[in-house]
């Protein structure tokens, strides 16, 4: 078994009085694509926000490479290779594509490697390289999503958190994005993927967790979950 990169154990997170995550436990092993699926408001994004230090769990532990990161600052985590591509594509609309990507490498000081990664990002997303000088806000939805992922890649992630990469995109674009996610994973980046689109997320991941009303309901191999009657009924629109 590969070593565990990320481990959440019994975390509880609150928004004021609202109990958003209840005893959520999950783990991600090196080299895996793990997906967290669930309906709107189930707590998927909250889980990611807690992992990357934007929210603090009230109890429970978050371990990254064995170290407790529940109280760590976001910028420290980015420096350690834990990076998120935010939901809604969170790009910088008035900066050019190139500037957006350079901010991705903000925390890094190794200039030659950054230049190499920039070339690599453009190679993965040729569309972006065509639009280098264009402002981020003028890109199409799919291109913005590519930019968000490419920007996250610029900070040399070891563990990449993707928040709803398919959100609001045409099915064809979604295919392209997920093909790219596979490719990034094959190049050695571990991925934790949050998705509403359970169908495609299960196809492109090794293991999956189903979260409902702040609780992890079902977990297992993605291939298995695709045949699980409960998942089929609730998330795949079958049965």
């Amino acid at each position, binding site marked *: 078994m590969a070593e565990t990169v990320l481990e959440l154990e019994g975390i509880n997170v609150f928004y004021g009085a609202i109990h958003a995550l209840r005893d959520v436990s999950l783990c991600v092993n090196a080299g895996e694509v793990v997906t967290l699926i669930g309906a709107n408001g189930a707590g998927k994004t909250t889980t990611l926000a807690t992992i990357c230090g934007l929210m603090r769990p009230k109890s429970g532990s978050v371990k990254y490479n064995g170290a407790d990161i529940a109280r760590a600052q976001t910028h420290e985590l980015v*420096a350690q290779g834990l990076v998120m591509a*935010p939901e809604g594509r969170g*790009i910088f609309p008035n900066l050019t594509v190139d500037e957006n990507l350079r901010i991705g490498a*903000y925390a890094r000081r190794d200039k030659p490697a950054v230049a190499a990664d920039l070339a690599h990002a453009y190679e993965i997303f040729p569309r972006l390289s065509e639009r280098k000088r264009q402002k981020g806000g003028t890109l199409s939805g799919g291109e913005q999503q590519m930019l968000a992922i490419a920007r996250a890649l610029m900070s040399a992630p070891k563990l990449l958190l993707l928040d709803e990469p398919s959100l609001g995109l045409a099915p064809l674009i979604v295919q392209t994005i997920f093909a790219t996610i596979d490719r990034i994973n094959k190049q050695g980046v571990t991925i934790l993927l949050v998705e509403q689109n359970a169908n495609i997320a299960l196809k492109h991941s090794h293991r999956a967790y189903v979260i409902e009303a702040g609780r992890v309901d079902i977990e297992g191999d993605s291939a298995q979950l695709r045949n699980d009657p409960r998942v089929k009924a609730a998330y795949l629109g079958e049965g």
Partner: protein
Amino acid sequence: MLRTGAVLVAGIIGAVVLNAVLAEFIDDYVVRVINLCGVAIVLAVSLNVINGLCGQFSLGHAGFMAIGAYVCSLFTTTQRYYDAASAQYVSEPSLAARMAEMFGADLAAAGSEQLQSIAAWGFLPGLIAGGVVSALAGLVVGIPALRLRGDYLAIATLGFGEIVRVVITNIPQIGGATGLPGLPPLANTSWIFAVCVVCIVFSVNLQRSTFGRALIAIRENELAAEIMGVRIARMKVMAFIYGAFFAGVAGGLLAHLLQTISPATFNFMKSIEVVVMLVLGGLGSLTGAVVGAIVLTVLPEALRDVEREVNLPGIRMVVYALVLILLMIFRPQGIFGQRELSLKLLRRVIPGGRK
């Protein structure tokens, strides 16, 4: 690095030459307007870092200016005030004079010319000290900026400016509500434009640096910036410190240009004025800040002539307001938007120019 140094030296020499030329050929009134433009440029460019690049709406610039102005005046000016306890006027020598005394100068015996040169020596340390104290205030104001956003931050910084003003009003030792008259006229064109050049060169470099990009990232999307590893808290405070430093220096310059300062000089209208310069020029554009500063300083003066022609006293402020309103209707992003003046832009704007 080398290029920056060369530009700085060239700019400062240019300022000194400009001073000599202006003093020789141009009439005093026009020189004064040019000097006011210089101060306004420093103010607008420094506020642009906070409001334009970092996107933190600050209305506290007058407060920073006041701090710089008063601290600087301590270095150059003998402070005379009425001491209520002893019921008599007390006079405190300036810090420059005290330093001179320590080095063995006899102030009582010194002629007025000598006293003036002593005050002049206090000017540069005064400007720097004013900037530093103001930067410390920027640090203090920057911290609430971490918790407040948008309008709320604007109100908090406005409050800061007013607090500074009220505190100064209540310290009789620095003139209280009456203010300080009789500051030596030390801020000539050389000084003002030298500071201007330093401020612009630093700001251009800042805008192109990683730090500048981080500030812009915060303005564009704070959450995304944080996720990319930008240390939001530190960057915001740094922006305030930077802006406050140059506002303090500009305050020192303005004090020694006007030669009289009072708390009323630094009321919140002064802060608004600087914000209007930025908005007019284009928030986030350094070129815009410079142009906005010049336009809003020159316009009210230029309109004086118009006023005399049409013989309608007061019409000048109406025209001034109209210009602003029209500009906001037809070009709400400001003259420059977020663009900078560059050769590329010039080529595009000038018809018939090469593409």
